[in-house]
């Protein structure tokens, strides 16, 4: 078929070696349309142009005189091997391709002395379970290169006379100080060449994320952070935890791994929509909760507990609660223990204060009474216990004394 006339023209090819990434910029000269849907085909070859290792189609709408961008991540560190890149185009639903642009070389200038060895990538950070390809650049006088991962020999695969590859799959976390990979070679100026692979544990999603208030001034949010992914040698700080509340738009970074106090302002709404995001250099994870403030009240423990023994078998307990007003109902749980065993339990609804009569007690006996409360309408969590120990008096003699 007829060749499509609009051959793309490569403007720049650049490399970010730390990311092992090739960045391509191009234009479509002589584009007469204001905009045109096009498909670009990009080819990448390695070591020589005939050794094509990657082909990708990239569709986009091109405007007149527009600079287009595309990038590609190399599995092999770009310091170790030269790549070549070219591009051609076709109209979105066209039949024929344009001519190819000319091949552009992609290489990172690395100078290496004849009896030196270079290992790439250097100080690589990656997540446990991922794969990595290391490459060795041999000085021309070197031979018999052997490498170890900690104490395990690892085999290289010759790519060409001066480059060999070491493929590590499903890497394992060994230490927060990194995994040492080192090589020795005959005829080398140094005994040891090495690099450190920083394998990070996988960042975990925070668990049991919840918030509650005891005073309607502060929301205490807490969560289980999971594993700490910090790495030594300044390679990765401990993961951060950020709370974002969507109704107020407020965002706060927590100073702690597993909790944060969120100030309830005067104009705060009643419903909260929190997103907790944890992040390290390699990953970001979020969890979300939505709740009504009044459904997350963690009542303070009851106070002013009193115990009045009425007679040898009856005792009356009274207590007070921190309440938010008359129409605010609390549910309280009363317990009576004798020698650590719960012998009686009862629930009672309470406004501001309450009392409860224990009867059928044993005379001359030690007891412990305790009470805790919670929101009656929207139960969230029991308060702590408030308790009091008491003893019943001896029973009065049943008959008059026979004097």
């Amino acid at each position, binding site marked *: 078929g007829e060749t499509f006339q609009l051959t793309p023209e490569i403007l720049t090819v650049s490399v970010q070696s730390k990311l092992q990434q090739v960045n391509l910029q191009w234009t479509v000269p002589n584009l007469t349309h204001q905009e045109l849907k096009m498909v670009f085909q990009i080819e990448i070859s390695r070591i020589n142009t005939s050794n094509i290792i990657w082909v990708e189609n990239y569709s986009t709408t091109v405007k007149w005189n527009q600079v287009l961008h595309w990038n590609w991540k190399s599995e092999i560190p770009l310091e170790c091997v030269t790549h070549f890149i070219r591009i051609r185009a076709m109209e979105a639903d066209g039949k024929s391709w344009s001519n190819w642009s000319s091949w552009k070389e992609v290489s990172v200038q690395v100078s290496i002395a004849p009896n030196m060895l270079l290992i790439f990538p*250097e100080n690589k950070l990656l997540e446990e379970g991922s794969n990595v390809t290391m490459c060795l650049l041999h000085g021309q006088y070197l031979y018999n290169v052997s490498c170890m991962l900690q104490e395990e020999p690892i085999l290289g695969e010759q790519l060409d006379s001066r480059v060999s590859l070491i493929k590590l799959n499903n890497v394992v976390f060994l230490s927060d100080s990194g995994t040492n990979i080192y090589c020795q070679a005959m005829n080398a100026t140094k005994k*040891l060449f*090495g690099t*450190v692979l920083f394998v990070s544990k996988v960042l975990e999603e925070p668990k049991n994320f919840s918030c509650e208030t005891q005073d309607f001034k502060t929301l205490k949010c807490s969560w289980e952070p999971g594993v700490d992914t910090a790495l*030594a*040698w300044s390679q990765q700080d401990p993961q951060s935890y950020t709370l974002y509340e969507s109704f107020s738009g407020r965002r706060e970074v927590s100073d702690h791994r597993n909790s944060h106090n969120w100030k309830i302002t005067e104009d705060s709404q009643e419903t909260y929509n929190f997103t907790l995001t944890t992040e390290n250099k390699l990953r970001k994870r979020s969890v979300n909760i939505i709740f009504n403030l009044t459904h997350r009240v963690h009542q303070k423990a009851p106070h002013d507990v009193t115990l009045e023994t009425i007679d040898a078998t009856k005792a009356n307990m009274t207590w007070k609660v921190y309440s938010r007003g008359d129409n605010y109902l609390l549910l309280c749980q009363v317990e009576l223990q004798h020698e650590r065993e719960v012998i009686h339990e009862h629930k009672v609804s309470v406004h501001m204060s309450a009392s409860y009569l224990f009867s059928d007690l044993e005379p001359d006996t030690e007891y412990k009474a305790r009470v805790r409360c919670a929101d009656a309408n929207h139960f969230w969590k029991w308060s702590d216990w408030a308790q009091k120990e008491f003893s019943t008096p001896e029973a009065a003699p049943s008959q008059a004394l026979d004097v």
Partner: protein
Amino acid sequence: RAARGCSSSSPQLLSQLQSQANITGDTGSLLEPYIHLQDLNTPTLRAACTEYPVAFPSEDTLRALSKPQFLNTVHATLGRVWHQLGALRQKFLKTRPFPALERARWNIQGIRNNVYCMAQLLNHPLEIPKPTQPGSGASMSTATTPSIFQTKLDSCRFLWSYHSFMGSVGRVFREWRDGSSRSRRHSPRHSLLRAW
């Protein structure tokens, strides 16, 4: 007259200095924990750790110095070691604690204090080095930013050399004691002071 906070007894001070030097000369106090923390505990990596020792003053150099010069050299060198260990400490601050490193820095401060006191007792106050004074070699090379693998090894070599240095210091201090006990037998009064 003893300087503020210093012992006035040079035999006691000397004995303290010698035991401190012995403690810090023991590789188990810092180098070994470091080797394990950094997974350098393989024959090859251990060998690399002791391959090119970092330049600390040698034992012969130390022995050839006068007492004031010796005290000055120890005090200045340990000052640099203290800073280097501080820089190393930063590398692990956010991961797990490294107690051996903390202890080492406390010990170094202790030794420097005693060295200061000894110099006072011998009426040769220490010369506090000017900030730009070139170190006596006791520092890790940080010219370009080396790879972390290289830094791990350089730190290992530094610690190895530091322990060796402290071993030498301990032996010189012991010779002070042996020398002073011999001359005390001949002329008991102020033997240590009169030794120069």
